[in-house]
């Protein structure tokens, strides 16, 4: 089994750049059952017991069919205005040699006026680990959701696709950390269908050894006065290879909308490869859009300055990486989770003397 030509870019470009889509570089292992732990639902969260309908993605048909055919876990959640942002729902998934594969489909409906936090954590230790997820989020009018996704598999394949539909004045904040797996293919597409909706993405990643990371993030604005805000930051070591496609798409009806996208990458190895594809698409005149991308090594003058203040070179480098990640980590609304992320980052950097 394999998946080819998935995570497609919204507008194709030259084939020789090999960024139009991606494919799995290793075969998918046999999918075996996965047993989840009982959920501890805070107030305002309710599991819906109705029969689950498979999610179909118009532009990723092969992937959604794969999920539907191999799914070993489904979840349908409703979040009501009774939810408290200070009491997040934490979903933890652990892959291991006894439970190496998780193929999940989830639907989350956030009701009008609700304001909630959801944290999804995925870890894994073992061989032939495989995770594939398809998450659909529906935000009703005035609904707010902060979704934090943390991934730190020791090895294996991680596929993670999220689609979001936003009604008027809704707010979706997405914080994503990719700190593991041999190959990660991840996508997040928000469609702001009605006026005054906001989509905000924050992503950090560290690539090491021969890791392959493939991102596809898109904010599609259809309602007037929408806001899109994408910030991505990463560090690449060894022979890591990363492709990031970030799209701001001002579609018909998005008068008065504003969006920005920015990615900064520290490239710390001559064998690593960084590919950035920031797209800006527009069919409305009364909008403001901007994107920026930068790739480079440590700023030597900043290193020098910190060393004059008594830090070692390694401490100075670590501080600069933390500074780069800070705007992302601080968006996680849960202190314990922020601490967990810093620990994971520190763990990844330690073996590089940083």
């Amino acid at each position: 089994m394999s998946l080819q030509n998935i995570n497609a870019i919204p507008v194709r470009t030259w084939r020789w750049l090999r960024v139009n889509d991606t494919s799995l570089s290793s075969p998918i292992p046999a999918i075996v059952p996965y047993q989840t732990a009982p959920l501890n639902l805070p107030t305002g969260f309710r599991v819906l017991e109705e029969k689950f309908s498979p999610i179909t993605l118009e532009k990723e048909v092969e992937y959604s069919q794969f999920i539907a055919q191999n799914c070993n876990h489904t979840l349908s959640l409703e979040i009501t205005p009774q939810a408290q942002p200070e009491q997040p729902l934490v979903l933890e998934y652990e892959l291991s040699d006894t439970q190496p594969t998780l193929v999940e489909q989830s639907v989350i409906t956030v009701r009008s006026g609700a304001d909630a936090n959801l944290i999804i954590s995925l870890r894994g230790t073992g061989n032939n680990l495989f995770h594939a997820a398809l998450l659909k989020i529906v935000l009703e009018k005035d609904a707010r959701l902060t979704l934090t996704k943390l991934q730190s598999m020791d090895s294996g394949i991680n596929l993670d696709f999220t689609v979001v539909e936003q009604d008027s004045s809704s707010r979706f904040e997405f914080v994503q950390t990719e700190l593991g797996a041999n190959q990660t293919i991840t996508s997040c597409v928000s469609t702001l269908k009605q006026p005054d909706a906001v989509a905000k993405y924050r992503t950090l990643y560290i690539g090491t050894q021969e890791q392959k990371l493939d991102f596809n993030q898109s904010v599609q604005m259809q309602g007037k006065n929408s806001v899109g805000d994408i910030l991505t930051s990463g560090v690449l070591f060894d022979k890591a290879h990363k492709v990031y496609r970030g799209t701001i798409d001002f579609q018909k009806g998005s008068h008065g909308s504003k969006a920005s996208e920015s990615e900064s990458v520290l490239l710390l190895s001559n064998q690593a490869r960084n590919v950035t594809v920031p797209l800006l698409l527009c069919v409305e005149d009364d909008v403001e859009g901007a994107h920026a991308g930068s790739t480079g090594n440590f700023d030597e003058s900043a290193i020098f300055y910190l060393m004059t203040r008594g830090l070692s070179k390694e401490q100075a480098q670590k501080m600069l990486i933390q500074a780069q990640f800070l705007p992302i980590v601080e968006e996680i609304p849960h202190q314990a989770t922020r601490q967990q992320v810093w620990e994971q980052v520190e763990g990844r950097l330690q073996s590089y003397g940083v």
Partner: protein
Amino acid sequence: MAKEKTRIEEFNRSMYDIQDPDQSSYKVDSGLTPEVIREISKQKQEPKWMLEARLNALETYHRLPMPTWGPSLHELNMEQIVMYVKPKKTGQASWRDLPEDIVNTFDRLGIPEAEKTALGGVGAQYDSEIVYHSIKDELQMRGVIYTDMDQALKDHEEIVKEHFMKLVPVTDHKFAALHGAVWSGGSFVYVPPGIEVDIPLQSYFRLNAPGAGQFEHTLIVVGKGASLHFIEGCSAPKYNVVNLHAGCVELFVEEEASLRYSTVENWSKNMMNLNTKRAQVKKNGKIDWVSGTFGSHITMLYPSSYLIGEGAQSKYMGVSFAGEGQELDSGTKVVHAASNTSSTIESRSISKDGGAAIYRSSVVVVPGAENCRSTATCESLMLDESSRSDTLPVMDIRNSSANVGHEAKIGKVSEQAIYYLMTRGLSEEKAKEMIVRGFVEPISKELPLEYAVEMNNLISLELEGSIG
């Protein structure tokens, strides 16, 4: 009361749209067959290796697929394009020796006048052949060669054979292969080492025949330490059938040399402009691309720079203006294939009346290329909600000492900026005019003077309403 949009007038094409009667001396049959290729080669009395290269390119053309990205080319029917149209007279050294209608055409375009006042040499192509070529004596005496490609193939065969379609191989893409099969006309320039050509050379390409293709090949070699400014202009009258332009430009910039290549493209709106331009820059050499794209129905144009020598530099400045019925897909590619190379990219686009302006680029830093620098800035102005503007850059960086940055913006003219200028005493209309001219100024100031004037004429504002 609803706000009225500020209008940007359509470019005045009356000068370009005058059609000369079709009085060609010879035309091949339409379509693309080995017989057509042999006939073109026979007309030109070419060496055998060039005919073999053409036939090989034709085979490659039939094998390669159409692009799966970019504007749709479904209106292009190759069976209906006439690949070669020979004018009544070719290769003249005096305007007086040309037919009156051809002279009148180039007169209207201002070419003879510019030749007298501001140029070191001129090449004028009409349909498939160069009809006129000149070079000032002083440049010739210094060893500068500026001639048409057919003559270069006879007089400088070894140089042509060494360089022809080496930067743009026929396997590069389908329309490079087409060009390799049916190319005709174009200019050859050789600047010896150390020679600074301080007044520009210009080639102008005029396609008159309806349903025809123009496939000129421009080959320029700038020797070590030499410098040159080359200007290229092109236009065609508008017909109800499709015309095709698939030219090719290959530029070889040797060590310490510099070349500025300025183009103002003003094809008619029935033209498919699928041009390929590429420069190879050696150690400490420099290429400047200045590109104004105003015409054609569909353009796919990406001047590319291959920086293969240490310290080589590339600068790209492009402005495009997409109006009704136009899809202008343009940009640039840079490959940093040596250490300490640098590139800058600056692009401006305006789209209106349903036009689509697409900026497409790539910046690649290969492994082993140390300390490379690249910055790109791209700004788009949309003047109404029926138009489109897309920005599609790609950066592929494989060296940890590279420093690469890119930024892009899209939007309308700021009302705050208009207000500020009005507080300084300008009328609202003058403020808007200043802002729009200022938007394109970083690029338009780099265009040759007469084209910059036309660029400013392009922007004439009605004095009511507000922008955006």
